[in-house]
């Protein structure tokens, strides 16, 4: 259904365009930094880090567009939810960008070094899973598809499980090579950052559900990331 006042729809088109750009860049940043890790190359990571500023700028643009729309259009019902959800999604995407930036910074140290037994293949696989979640959740947002959003929430469980097992493998590798604690710690943080991006994608999925239904999903999401419970033997 279209608004009688067509400029109202144009405002939403503009907001969606900004979110699409944010989503596109956030996804590309994660994809690229994972590629650097996989191919063990560092040239170009600085450019990737610098590119995070684009996300910050777009997030600010979105805030201005949203505030203007609220002030001038006084949106109601789903229109109001669309604006509020756009604000939250933009902030989530901006945070996702920060995590990719942080991964890139740590990668500059990690890539030239060597930690035997580091589960790099699993790390890259987890990043791929998260990147797919991010891609799907942006589709769900644009199509206002609450069913797809629900499915994405379930996928986060697999990411959590993988992160827990990665965490254990990394601890073992660090234990065996005490002179590589710095590298090992950076890898722990990289794994955690990827897992957090999965959480943000899940948050966006919950926002999409709210956008469509006017309430948040009632079922408590299962958690499988038990790495924070890890103890010394």
């Amino acid at each position, binding site marked *: *259904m*279209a*608004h*009688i006042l067509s400029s109202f729809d144009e405002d939403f088109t503009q907001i969606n365009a900004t979110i699409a750009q944010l989503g596109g860049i956030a996804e590309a940043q994660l994809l690229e930094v994972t590629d650097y890790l996989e191919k063990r190359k560092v040239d170009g990571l600085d450019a990737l880090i610098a590119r995070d500023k684009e996300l910050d700028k777009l997030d600010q643009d979105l805030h201005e567009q949203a505030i203007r729309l609220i002030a001038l259009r006084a949106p*109601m*019902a*789903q*229109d109001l939810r669309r604006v509020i959800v756009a604000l939250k999604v933009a902030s989530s995407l901006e945070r996702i960008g920060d995590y990719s930036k942080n991964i890139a910074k740590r990668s500059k140290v990690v890539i030239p070094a060597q930690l035997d037994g580091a589960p790099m293949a699993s790390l890259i696989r987890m990043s791929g899973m998260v990147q797919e979640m991010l891609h799907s959740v942006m589709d769900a947002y644009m199509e206002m598809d609450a069913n797809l959003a629900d499915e994405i929430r379930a996928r986060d469980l697999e990411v959590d499980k993988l992160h827990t097992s990665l965490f254990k493998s990394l601890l073992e590798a660090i234990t065996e090579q005490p002179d590589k604690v710095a590298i090992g710690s950076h890898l722990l943080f990289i794994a955690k950052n990827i897992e957090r991006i999965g959480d943000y994608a899940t948050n966006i999925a919950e926002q999409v559900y709210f956008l469509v239904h006017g309430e948040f999903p009632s079922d408590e999401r299962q958690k499988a990331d038990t790495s924070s419970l890890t103890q010394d033997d």
Partner: protein
Amino acid sequence: MEEKPKITARDVNVFYGDNQALFGVGIDIPANNVTALIGPSGCGKSTFLRCINRMNDVIEGCSVRGNIHIDDANIYDAHLDVVELRARVGMVFQKPNPFPKSIYDNVAYGPRIHGQATSKADLDNIVEKSLRRAGLWEEVKDRLAAIGSGLSGGQQQRLCIARAIAVSPDVILMDEPCSALDPIATAIIEDLIEELRNKYTIVMVTHSMQQAARVSQKTAYFHLGKLVEFGNTSDIFTRPQFEQTEAYISGKIG
């Protein structure tokens, strides 16, 4: 426990000649709340409002079927005194319409004709109390003999509210009470409405979605003579249950 509704309407049908304006409207309006009636022009919201104090009786060819009770009294009972009903159910109109009389006489008019004041002092007291409740006393206390129509638009509307409450009604009906007022005068009236609901049950027709959202606790959406949706204002404006309501409050068509 749900409180007993102040106004109960059941299967209300209204006809203007052969033209049916309301179709089977049923609603429970709670006491000491502001209930906003919204909907596009011609949807029947003002018709329904005018049923509550039988203002439709004076319209040629208009007939009302169904039941409307205020508390336990059927207001369409053949023995009911309509003049008395209109004292219990006051009305404020879109355009401020003070009588061509002094400020004092505008407010004193109702209590006089209903014989509610026993002495001049008594009447003075009612006039002051009503003007205070309408938030107008401080502005007019030194010129009560001045003509009511000499006041500003917002003041005139508050004078009409004072006139309505002077006869101690239970219910106040408002038909777009702010549509002729500027934003400041509107804000003053809205603030007053919020205050008045402690003492009265208020039913208000408004074309301003923002006004309905700001001042009412309950909202009823009418469309083509039917009551589509009725519920808490906070729900109606954030997640209405019916697509028709959603489209109307968001200004959509399709």
